[in-house]
Each structure stands twice: as structure tokens, then as C-alpha cells.
């Protein structure tokens, strides 16, 4: 994989919901380029028919009795919310006019 272009970096930053400047895009292009070149050594290994490991334990599904338990109080859950109104989380406009 070749070095990332500035445009590609900006696209990734958008996917990651990170505001970046032109300067930062250049820096990230350089840093990510180095790391991805480093990561390409993995291609030395033939992994045909090798199962990917996402998790080392053999636990698959963990079930429990479907019994309702009391959660945290709403007031407590709102304690760290910066902007709120009538017990609800407030955010800036989602749609622009």
C-alpha cells in the first residue's frame, strides 16, 4: 500500500469524526505511511486458510436469566451531561436549513 494522500487522510479523519487542519493532514499522512509500511511485513506470512482470532477464549454466547434489574437513576445518569433540558440531553442542530 502506497503512502496515503492528504485527501485520503482527510476522508479517514471524517470517518473518525476528527476535525483536522491541512498541516495535520500532512503529518498524519507521513506517520500513517510509516506505520502502514511497517505493517506490510505481515504479508511475508502465508495466511491462506488461517482462521482469524478476534478473541482468545472459547467463550461463545453468555446467557443469563431474563430477569429485569433496576438500573441507575436517571438523575444520576445526567450528572455528567453538560447541556440538558427537562431531564433530556441537549445537542446542537442535526439538520441545517
Amino acid at each position, binding site marked *: 500500500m502506497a503512502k496515503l494522500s492528504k485527501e485520503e487522510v482527510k476522508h*479517514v479523519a471524517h470517518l473518525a469524526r*476528527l476535525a483536522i487542519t491541512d498541516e495535520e493532514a500532512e503529518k498524519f499522512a507521513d506517520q500513517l505511511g510509516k506505520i*502502514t509500511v*511497517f505493517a506490510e511485513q505481515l*504479508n*511475508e506470512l502465508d495466511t491462506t486458510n488461517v482462521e482469524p482470532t*478476534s478473541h482468545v477464549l472459547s467463550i461463545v454466547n453468555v446467557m443469563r436469566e431474563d430477569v429485569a434489574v433496576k438500573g441507575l437513576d436517571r438523575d444520576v445518569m445526567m450528572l455528567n451531561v453538560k*447541556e440538558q433540558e427537562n431531564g433530556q440531553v441537549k*445537542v446542537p442542530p442535526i439538520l441545517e436549513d
Partner: protein
Amino acid sequence: MTLFERSARELQEGLHNGEYTIADLTNEAFSRIEKLDGDVQAFLALDKEKALQRAEELETIPTGERGPLFGLPIGVKDNIVTEGLETTCASKILKGFIPIYDATVVKKLRDAGMVTIGKLNMDEFAMGSSNENSAYKTTRNPWNLDYVPGGSSGASAASVAAGEVPFSLGSDTGGSIRQPAAYCGVVGMKPTYGRVSRFGLVAYASSLDQVGPITRTVYDNALLLEAIAGVDPNDSTSANVPVPNYVANLNGDIKGLRVAVPKEFLAEGVSEEVRQSIKSALDVLKGLGATVEEVSLPHSKYALAAYYILASSEASSNLSRFDGIRYGFRAEGVKNLMELYKETRAKGFGEEVKLRIMLGTYSLSAGTYDAYYKKAQQVRTLIKEDYDKVFENYDVIVGPTAPTAAFKINQNTHDQLTMYANDILTIPINLAGVPAISIPCGFHEGLPLGLQIIGKHFDEETIYRTAYAYEQATDFHKQTPQIWEGK
């Protein structure tokens, strides 16, 4: 002199004999911190009032109901949530965040009668190997203040090494307990994946993260792991495997123990002094009746690349929750929701965190997913199989914890790949999910070196038995940094 040069057992004796009270021990921690933390810079938040109040409450509990860690002070890494006590993961994005519940491990400390003293600095979101990635301060190595304590649980190791607290909790995703334990000359255990609940540990890479104990001795470490281990209904990846009494078999006897030494762990890149210290350690183990043989873990050299792809991918997903809406920092003066997300995250996260989020997002993107993420997961399988194979014939794998002793502050900050290389000997263990400990095994120019002992899944018992036998046969753990006595 401090009471904290005593072991847990000795501290209990003193409490029992009335030599001091639990409040005295609690105050000792705060006075040590007051004296030393200006230099060490380990604590981000202290909980003095509540800790002293709790010490009084604990005093009323009868001796018969007290366990081996009862009344003893402990520091907690700042990525473990503590109800009512600010938890920031050393990030600006969580500045002012007051958790509304305790992590399971914190509950378990309380059940054991321990007193939480405060929160310990770290690399932001546990991403780093030196504590230089903290948004607040750089913790320093108590053995030499110009050097890093390691990371990311650098302050967890430094606070114990400096005798500010006798115990701490850290977390380990790619070496974050063991590498700082090695750099600071203390004992740090990364348990088997699933051994300890992750509920309330702020996630970095969920398939690799584990909470673990940092102490000055192996015996105390075993006590603390036993206190925090076990299945938890709030963490479906915690394993339903019985927790043994780890200290029951600490008798110094390792006759017939089969020790494997991977040749890759003593290869190029590992410094001569580290190699020598490991050779001496192997002689000690042989002298105690263990058999030592060289083995190969052929995929070791690919672990670093696989790790950075997998850990960053998981991080990019886990850290999406920090959006400025429900907790922590929130950017101001924005026009719409998308801008709020982007500005909050751009201003709230530090450089290294952003880089890993970018790397992870890129690795998981359409078009690169198979080449990076899936490939890394397949390589992870090969690494795990290396370990499975060796453990068919051996009880433990032994090698260095880190390729060198601690490095100077600012020495490695210019280049990510050089910094990442510090973790080359610890990362494969997380990928394989097996447990491993770092214990002191020597010094180089006044800085400690660490011996890493790796075990089979859920066999922390054999690791502790080996580590204890080695520790009893040597005296590296008895040494303390000059700062210990104060200036």
C-alpha cells in the same frame, strides 16, 4: 523509613498488635505522597477525606472478619472508574468526569477492606510506553527522575516503587503493567485474558485489555490478584474459571519445572545487559532444580505490527463514545452536531490517541479491511499457536520484559516506531491471551531490569510459584530507590 517497606502480612501483624491503626496507614500514604509526589508526579487525584473516613469505618470491623489485605492503602490507575472520584484516563476529553459507579475491581478492593488513596497517571487512554502521553503530566522514574517510569501504567509502578502506596492496580493491553514494573523494579502481573473483570475499565482494545496488580513482592501480588479475580455478570468476557488460593503453593520449590526460553526473546535489539541478567536468572532457576531449554516462537517478530493494527482498530471503535454529548469535555461555538463531534474530539484527544484512531479507522475501512485488520487477526492466530505448541511441553516461558532498562524522558518521543519497539517482548503475550508477570532481576546503571515469566491460560499459579522461588533466591526486590528515604 516508611511502614510500606513491610509486606502485607507484616502490615497486618502491626494492625493486629495495635502498633498503628488503619487511619495511620492511610495517613502514611498521604504523607509519603506529599513528600515525594512533587518529584515522582504519580497521582492525578487524591481522595483523602473519603479515605480517612473509610479507615475509621474499617476500624470497627472485628479481626476475625478481616482478610489479608484489610485496611491497606492502594492506588488505582486512572482508566478504572471510581464512583464520585474524577476519572480522566489522563485525557483532556474526560476532564471533570465523575463516574457514577465503581468498576468491579474497585468493588472487589472494597470487599477486601482496602482503602483507595487516589488515581494514578498514565499515557492517555493507555496508549504509550513512557507516561509522556499523559495530557496532564509526565510521571518520573523513582530510580532516576530523568528517566521515564514506562507505560502506560507508569505511575502505578512508580508510586509503588517510591513507597507512596504499597499496592496499585494497572491495566495491560500490550505490556502496560509489565514494562513499567520492569522499569521501576516492582512486581506486575498481566492476568490471563478473562481472569479479571473489565467492567469499569475504560476500554482501549477490548480483546487485549486486562486489569492487574502491581506490588513490591510476589506474595503480595498473588494476594491482590486473588482479591480482584473472578467471573463477573457485568463482563461477558470474564471467564467462569475458579480462582485458586495463589499463595497456598508459594514454597520456593520448583524442582522439575520445565522452563522454555524463546531464542527470539534474546535476539537482536535486546541489550547486552538485559541478556546477561536473563542468563543469570536462568542459572538461578536451574540451581533451584528447573530444567531450562531453548525453544522458538517463530512468529514473534510479527506481533508488533499485528498488535498496532488490532489495538488501534478496537480503539477507534471504543473511543467513538467520546463525543462531547454525555460526559467530559465539550467544544463550544459550533454550528451543528457534526461539528460538535469533530471539534470536541480534535481538541479533547492528544496526538498519539488521534494517530491510533486514524490508523484503526483506516485499517477497518472498506478496501483495507482484508489487507490490514483481517490479516492481523490471522497473524494473531499464528502467534497464539506458537504459544500453544510450546506449552505442550513446558510449564513456563521465561525471557526479558523489555529490551532495555528505562530510557530518558524525551528520548523516544520523536518517532512512533522506536517507541513502539519497547513493547516487542510483551505484546505477543496479550495477543495470545496468556498470563505473564514481570519481577526485578537486576540493575543497569542504577536502573532496574525485569524478568518476564509467562504461563498457560489460567495458570497464574505456576507463574507465581516460579516467581516466588526466584525472588526468594535473589535480593533485587529488597532494594529501594534513593528517593525512598526522602531528601
